[in-house]
Structure formats: C-alpha cells, structure tokens
C-alpha cells in the first residue's frame, strides 16, 4: 500500500516541477487540477476500509479541486481575455532550480524529523513540504493574478497532503469546515479577479502598484 501511495505522491511532486516550468496559463491550471485530483484520491489509500463518509469527502474534494475550481479559473482567464503566458517574475530556469533544491531539502529534512513507524519510508511529509515550497515559488514568482491563485492552490495541496497524516484523528466536521473555507476563499478570489480585470483591464499584478510608501 505504501509503495502505491508513494507513487501517487511522487507523481504530485513531479507535477510541481511541471507547474514551475510551464509558460502557459491553461497548462498551469490543468497541472494544478491534476495534482488536486491525485492528492484528493490519497485518503482512499490511507483508509482502505469502505467508509461512506470518506468516499463522500474524497468525491467532493476531487470534484472541487479537479473540476469546479479549474473551470472557474479557466472562465476567469477567458472572460479576462488575458494573453496566454504566465509572465514570470522569477524566470523558468531559476524557478525550476529553486523548486528542485527545495524538493531535495524537503526530502532530506523529512528523513531527519521524528516520524511514526507507519510513516517511515513514506513520502507524505517530504512531498507535502516540497509542494508547499512550490506553491510559494509560484505565488511570488508569477505576476498574473490567476497564476498566483494556482500557486495558492498548490500550497494548499501541500498542506492537505500533510493533513492526511492526521486523517485518523481530525474530526470530519473540522475537515469539512477547512474544505469549505478554502472553497469560499477561491470564490472570493475569483470575484476580486473580476474586479481587478474590470478596473485595470488586465490581470497582471505588476499593474497594481499605486500603493506604496
């Protein structure tokens, strides 16, 4: 079971690098959606016994991360008629180098940390930290508002992955609340995107530069 889990997490880590390397907005949205779907399925592997609540939770997560949020972002990017590039502030090669360095550091660190016996040899901790670092790089390294939201989603995927360490102990109510908050957050971000587009006629956050000391 652990090895299959590691394959999935490995895939998600690979997608991190794809997300850092891609120059197309649509491709970035697709990568983030795919990562969301892959990670959304992980709870089924961790808790293999059939449990209707876990299945429902997985289904909602996968639907939201894989379909609803990406189509919202795609819609925003079309409505905004933005050009198709992500316009990096940190170039692709430096982002990839930083991302890889972060990934190696995350994995090294995860071997140093005290883990429970069942998490030894699992990529959960390392993978989650690598994904969080990627999310940060996308957040600060891309200037298009949609790409920044994608960065936030990757960051959130990383935290979700870490949360799976506690899947047995965190009550479902709390999980559901967290998921709800994140979804509302993305919708709110979508509304703000729309306002930015209407006001500045662009989704390039470099144009948001009025406020400074």
């Amino acid at each position, binding site marked *: 079971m652990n090895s299959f889990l590691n394959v999935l997490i490995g895939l998600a880590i690979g997608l991190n690098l794809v997300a850092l390397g891609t120059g197309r907005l649509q491709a970035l949205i697709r990568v983030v959606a795919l990562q969301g779907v892959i990670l959304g399925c992980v709870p089924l592997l961790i808790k293999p016994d059939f449990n209707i609540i876990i299945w429902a939770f997985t289904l909602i997560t996968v639907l939201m991360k894989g379909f609803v949020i990406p189509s919202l972002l795609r819609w925003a990017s079309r409505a905004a008629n933005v050009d198709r590039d992500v316009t990096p502030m940190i170039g692709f090669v430096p982002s990839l180098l930083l991302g890889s360095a972060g990934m190696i550091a995350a994995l090294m660190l995860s071997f140093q940390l005290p883990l429970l016996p069942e998490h030894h040899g699992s990529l959960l901790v390392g993978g989650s930290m690598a994904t969080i670092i990627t999310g940060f790089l996308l957040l600060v390294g891309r200037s298009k508002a949609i790409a920044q939201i994608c960065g*936030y989603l990757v960051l959130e995927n990383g935290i979700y992955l870490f949360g799976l360490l506690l899947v047995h102990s965190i009550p479902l109510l709390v999980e559901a609340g967290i998921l709800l908050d994140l979804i509302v957050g993305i919708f709110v971000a979508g509304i703000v995107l729309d306002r930015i587009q209407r006001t500045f006629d662009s989704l390039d956050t470099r144009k948001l530069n009025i406020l400074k000391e």
Partner: protein
Amino acid sequence: MRELFLVLIPLAGACFAALWPSERTRPWFLPIISAIHTLLMSWLLINPPEVLFHSWMGFDPLARAILPVISLLFLVCSIYGIPYLKIHKERKNRVFVSVILASLGLISAAHMSRHLGLLWIATEGLTLCFVPLIHFSSKPRAIEATWKYLLVSATGIALSLLGSFCLGYASLHGGGQGDLTFTALIAQASSLSRPWVLIAWVLILVGYGTKMGLVPMHAWKPDAYGEAPSMAGALLAGGVSSVAFLALLRVRSVVAAAGAGVIADRTLLFLGLLSMLLAAFFLLSTNNFKRMLAYSSIEQMGILCIGASLGAVGLWAAFFHLWNNCMAKGAIFLSAGNLQRGAGSCTTADAKGLFLIMPHSSLLFMAGLFAITACPPFGLFFSELMIIKNAFFLGYLWVAVLFLFALMLAFFGLTRIVFSVVYGRPKTNSKQLSTKYCEKPATLLPSLILIGAVLFLGLCIPNPLRQIWSDAVQQLIPNL
C-alpha cells in the same frame, strides 16, 4: 450552551440582513444585533456558563477577558455605520451589513474556540469576511489593497493551518490521539514530540502573526487600513488582530506546557520589538493619516507581544493594553473617517487645516492621538508603563530601552502627521465637501464614547475587570 448564541445571533442576523429587501432600513440591523450581542455578553459575564473540560467551544476566562471590549467596539462602530451608509447611498449596503454581522459572529466563535481546527476555520472565515469591506469603495486603490490583503492573509492563514497539523502530529508522535483541543494538548504536553512542537510554533507564529500584522508579515496592513472604510479599519485593528493575538496566547500555553516556553517567549519578544521599531520608522516617513493608523496598529501589536512574553504581570498588562488599544484605535479610526470625508483625501498634502472645517472631529482625532501615543491619563499610558516596569523588574534593560525609543519615535511620527492635518490653512475644495458631509452627532458620538472609555480605564480599573484579566492569566499560566 448559552454562549453559542454569541455566535449564532450575529450569523442569523447576517442571513436576515442579506435577505432584507430595503436598502434604507438594512443598516439598522447593525446596531440592533450588536446591542443584543452586548446585552447577551453582559449577562454571560454576570452568570458565567460552565465550561466543560474537553469542549470545543466555551466562554472560558480567556474569552471573557477579551470578547466584551470587542462587543462594545462593534456596538459603537455599528452606531457609526448608520450615518456612514446614509452618506454613501450610492453604494449597495447588502454585502457590507451582512459581512459585518457575520464577522461579529466569527470573532466571537474564534475567541471561544478551544479547538485548533475550529479556531482556524473561524479565523479564515473572518479573513474572507473583510475582503468585501476593504474594496467597498471600488476604487482602483481599494482593489489593489484587497488583492494584497487576500494573498498575504490567505498564505499566512494557510501556514497556521499547517502549524495546527504539526501540533496534531506532535500529539500523535507522543502516543496521543492527535486531539487538537487545547486542554487535551496541554494534558499531553510532557509527551508531545519536541521538534514538531517547535515547528508548529514557528508556523503558527508566522500564520497568526500575519493576521496580527507583525513585522515582517505586515505588508498587507498599511494598504488594507488605508483603503478600507474607517469603520472596517476600526474593526480590523480592534477585533481581528485580537483574534490572532488570542490564538497565539492559546498556542503559547501549549508550547510552554511542552517545555519550550522560553523559546516561545523569546520569539514573541523579538518579533514584538522588531514590529515596534520598524513601525516607528515607517511612522516617520508616511504622509497618509490612515496608513499612519496601520503603522500605529503594527506598533501596538508589537507592544502586546512584548507584554505577553514578560511573564504573568506582562500578560496582565497585555490584556489591559488590548482593551485600551481596541477602544483608542476605534475612536481615532472613526474620527479619521470623518476627516477623510471632509477633506476628500487622507494625505497630508491635501488634508490641511481641518480644525477650521470640522472642529469636533479634529478635536476627537487629537484626543485619539494622545490616547494612542500613551499620554497620561489615558489607559494606554498605564498599560505601557506596567510593561516597561515589568521589563526592568525581570532584568530586560535593553528591552525597556528599545521599547521607550520606539515609543518616542512613534510619538514624533504620529504628532507630525496629526498636527499637519489639523492645523494650517484649509484647501478650498474641502470647504465645499464639509458642508455636504457636515458633522453630525451620530458620527461624533461613537468616537467620543470610545475616548471616554479609554480615559475611564486610565483613571480607574473596575475590580471585575481586574478579576477577569487575572483569571485569564491564571488560565494561561496555571502554576502561578
């Protein structure tokens, strides 16, 4: 269970306000619901409900020590909200009224949360509630501020979620159940895995520190405070920042129980001093009086952190300071809102000589200045004095020196801006505006009430208040 009404009534009010058809009468929801909240709060203070040991939510001493002042702040701000929304008839108030009420419910929920996950949910909800408030004016500047607020706060709050998970893992690793209630974590404290506790503390400090606006996570604060309506600014500075502070206090008590209290205190002290000093330097350079209030708020958050890191007496002073800051910030924000409308701007270049145009608001603004710069006999003087005395007493001489230095710089910076706004020769266009938005009792009274309350706390602290702060300190540091 009675305490749950503190959450449910505002949330229900928010739903009703969202469905209410009339734009003209909807703002009345604000004072009505806030007044019910305050009354309920007073009843709960007189007859405290029982708090079950492992309950997820409860009106415990910590909630009792902070929530009343926030309820009061909301009530006063909501009185201000009616004339404010009347002046801005052109803007739809459905979302504005609903989210303010929802945020009152969520702030109450966050203060009473005794479960890390629940606390996170309430704080995140609160963060999102303020998004429509910040871009209420729909100006490009406001939208830019909203975007920055959303990105920085969402990232910060995501990190605090990660920190909460780390604390859960520390519990699992120590042989516990991963239960995230504070009481369970403290009960298990000695077996919590230390590396994970420290990682959790750093992440939670960064996460909730972002919400508080501690340096270096403060980037969103000047923009959001500068562009949000003053009423939202007052609620952000008084209500939201205290939620984050309380969250840090609760987590700190777990970290201290796990034997890492010294590290937690050192980091709080360091961030507190850094925030004070940097905010003081920014105060010397800014020329916008609402951004000035943001830097002043960063400075006050620094003071709270320093107080919290200086043992039981410091913590007591921090609670005292939080009350003072909450009301003083409310007063000065609301009067700043009047001045902004009168002058049509909040930069010192355009807003000048406002004393001639809006004498009452200017007076209140100046009184607010003296309150937040801790001039006696306002309450802030005594709370800050208590923190400094305690720093000397504990032998932190350098802390006291830096603290006083930052206060002095902040005093220069604040008085420089306030006096240049109040005195001088007014610009002609401000005169036309001021006749349109002339000073009314309803826009002056809220500031006056809050200033009066800060003054009162400076002159005497009622015994019940002393008692609830002592109880809260007792809850955080049990083996006193």
